[in-house]
């Protein structure tokens, strides 16, 4: 899961101080692993260098006074990221969740995110199904294991899709 892109996504709803950003991130995505300040500032520095954010200085000194805002290059990076499916593999939920929440926060169609991902999952499942029908029993068992995991992901995707309205009111509250 890309912390940089997530922070960028959070910035899209408006400029923030580094501290606010960390708090916003922890609140939504950092239940088990809150970010260190160091991580936040180093990531912001990298984004600054790549021209994806810019700094709006306020009167006064020190890092606390810097507000970060997303650039148009940053916006298009977020859009590309959200529009592109993740490689189907186990334990994707945190990334997908982040994407869905960011899509909702930035007013994009979260259903698209989910459907894109679902298509990608199905593509993998098709591949596995094909391999399974051509392979021997060992291949079949291995493929089935992967298929069941992917199916579980897909079910999560479906469930999330069904609960998007609920989620939207929750995150934008």
């Amino acid at each position, binding site marked *: 899961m890309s912390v940089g892109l997530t922070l960028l996504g959070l910035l899209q709803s408006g400029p923030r101080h580094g501290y606010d950003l960390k708090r916003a991130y922890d609140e939504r995505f950092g239940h088990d692993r809150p970010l260190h300040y160091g991580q936040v500032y180093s990531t912001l520095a990298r984004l600054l260098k790549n021209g994806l954010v810019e700094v709006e200085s306020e009167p006064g000194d020190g890092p606390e006074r810097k507000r970060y805002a997303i650039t148009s290059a940053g916006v298009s990076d977020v859009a590309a990221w959200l529009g592109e499916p993740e490689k189907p593999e186990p334990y994707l939920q945190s990334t997908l969740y982040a994407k869905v929440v960011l899509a909702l926060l930035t007013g994009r169609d979260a259903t698209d995110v989910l459907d894109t991902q679902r298509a990608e999952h199905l593509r993998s*499942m*098709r591949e596995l199904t094909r391999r399974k029908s051509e392979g021997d029993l060992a291949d079949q068992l291995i493929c089935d294991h992967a*298929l069941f995991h992917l199916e579980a992901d897909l079910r999560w995707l479906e469930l999330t899709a069904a609960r998007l309205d609920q989620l939207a009111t929750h995150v934008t509250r």
Partner: protein
Amino acid sequence: MLDAPLLTADGLHLRFGETQALNDASLQVHAGEVVALMGPSGSGKSTLLHCLAGILTPDSGQVTYDGRLLSQMSDVERSALRREEFGFVFQFGQLVPELTCLENVALPLRLAGTSRRAAERTASDWLQRLEVTDVADKRPGQASGGQGQRVAVARALVTSPRVVFADEPTGALDSLNGERVMQLLIAAARDTGAAVVLVTHEARVAAYSDREAVVRDGRVREQEPVR
């Protein structure tokens, strides 16, 4: 290379009382391809299948099969179409309980005018192919769920249809039986060149398709073919 689609739904609307079952649903099915219709319960995927097969007539919008508008065909013509060009597999309750399995498979051929003997010979071949010869002379009630579903697949394919409509064909089966039915269905469809429209909510079943279309709130969110 893109052929003209074999079966097209264009902007279908259909309302059952208060429920808007289809709301501008569109879909294209090409010859020989397997399309999975997915979506949550009540999203309208079965209704879309029924419209594509000419069982239901949409309130507005067009279904075209092989260049012909279904809406311009009479009920008799649509019935003939379903008899000769389409095949059907449903979740359950589709076999005539009083006929034997062999007679059930022979039924579509006999409806199309084949003699009883010839129809039952062809039906027998199909039962063999689907590995259910042992229930040929039993009634559906005496066969297991998996066997019954394979008999149903045999019945759907016995007329060598150009499109097979399968509505949750594995819905009442366990994984292993479901897998087997899907493998046999898809293999047989590929051999005969039949297109398959597959309604399912199970991803592992949908994985047998070439592409999927997601139906949500009566609308199709079609994905590009991945090939």
